[in-house]
């Protein structure tokens, strides 16, 4: 076994175990923390693939951004002694059946497909390449989607400010 394989096994074990814990935990903040571990290990996977940019984005956006937002809203809304009630037995059975079927489907598809290892050398994805393709409008350029997403985000931000703004009473 090479070092890479060992790292892969560790990361995937963390992802699987903590994903299950995230949905089974009855305390909401613990669930959020387990989710954080899942997201960080996913970033670790990206580091293993030498795709450092995506790994850093994963850490900033998901681990540092979204999880912090989730935890923040939990802090504002729930008390430490609150626990989720365990769902009814039939619900749990249905959920288990659905997830097992899903897992079987994914596994059979993956196992039936023969993956051919590529012979190309790994591409070096550096920041200049990403930056240039984000703002170029020629071949392989992403200028239009980039601008569209910016406008969408701007609209969302303005909408949030309008919703959150207190109306002055006369």
């Amino acid at each position, binding site marked *: *076994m*090479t*070092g890479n394989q*060992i790292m892969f096994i560790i990361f995937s074990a963390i992802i699987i175990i903590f994903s299950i814990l995230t949905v089974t935990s009855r*305390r909401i*903040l*613990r669930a959020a*923390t387990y989710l*954080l571990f899942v997201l*960080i290990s996913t970033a670790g996977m990206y580091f293993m693939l030498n795709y*450092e*940019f995506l*790994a*850093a*984005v994963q*850490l*900033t956006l998901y*681990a*540092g*951004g979204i*999880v*912090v937002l989730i*935890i*923040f809203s*939990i*802090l*504002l809304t729930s008390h*430490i*002694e609150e626990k989720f009630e365990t769902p009814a037995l039939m619900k749990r059975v249905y959920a288990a059946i659905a997830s097992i079927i899903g897992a079987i489907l994914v596994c059979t598809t993956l196992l039936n497909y023969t993956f051919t290892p590529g012979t190309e050398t790994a591409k*070096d994805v*550096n*920041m*200049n390449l990403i930056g240039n393709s984000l703002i170029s409008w020629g071949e392989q350029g992403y200028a239009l989607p980039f601008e569209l997403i910016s406008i969408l985000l701007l609209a969302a931000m303005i909408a949030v400010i309008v919703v959150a703004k207190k109306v002055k009473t006369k």
Partner: protein
Amino acid sequence: MAFDIYDFTSFNQTIDKALYDNLPPILAMLTEMVIIGVVFLLFYALVGLFLVYAERKVCAFIQNRVGPNRVGPYGIFQTFADFIKLLMKELIPINKADKILFNLAPFIVIIASFMAIAAIPFGKGLHAIDLNVGIFYVMAVSSLGVVGILLAGWSSNNKYSLIGAMRSGAQIVSYELSVGLSMVTMVILAGSMQLSEIVEAQRNGWFIFTGHVPAFIAFVIFLIASTAETNRGPFDLAEAESELTAGFHTEYSGIKFAFFFLAEYMNMFIVASIAATIFWGGWMPLHIPGWEGFNIVMDYIPPFFWYMGKTLVVIFLMMWFKWTFPRLRIDQLLKLEWKYLLPINLFNIILMALIVLMGWHF
């Protein structure tokens, strides 16, 4: 270049080769990981202890006191004694706390700062990992620390802790923006995010000089925003002792408290070394174009001293802030970020882009 005598690349490669020749690959890799881990842990602990001592001395100097002066000459072993005391203290278990999260929180804070320190270049070739998104990576992992603070505040089941955690969350999330944008300004000038390349680009002059006006504005903003991001005074609302006893770490004792304490100082060290790296040239000696003799003399000072010297100057600035400015109110804090720093920063980025495009920098 004369400072190539201090190049550690070949030294590292020799060790690497010796290990891989004598051991199976996995063992060689594990040995390297252990060596690097031990070196960094030692460095981390020593710098942490030194910074606590430095803070007490600087504070004493500003307040016209003597400061620690009993343990060892000038009290330099005071923090070691304090550290042993903290190790021996009782860890008080909290009955109604969420035990798992309560014990986990200090580790998240300290791991986040430990991950950030790995990417910092201490000298040519003295680098644990040289990622091509270096500066972005440092920002990404240091943003994880806030999770630990929020968890600590919530899981202590204490109203002071909760209020402290909320304040610190709001503060770090907003000031992260300014830190990131001022870094982006310098990335525009450097043309790279790789920290070793950013240092290399400052061979003929540090960015604070070559980038003139926008670089200086970015430095000031970075200094303000990173002081806020590390929860230090005058932005220490999260642990404002006069209102919240100790904020998010009220309920912690013994070594767990020491972890928070150490992480705070190490975060200060990390932001100071980032400031030193992207504005003051990191380990690059002071070069003045044209003064050949002067440059050669400067090259003989080892890069590690340059790096530490610059970092310590920035740290001293941050300590100076803490002991001279009064603490901000939460609304003043948010107003400063969103109404002043952010617009100035956005304008500054455009200015820097213009200067780089027109070639007005030196």
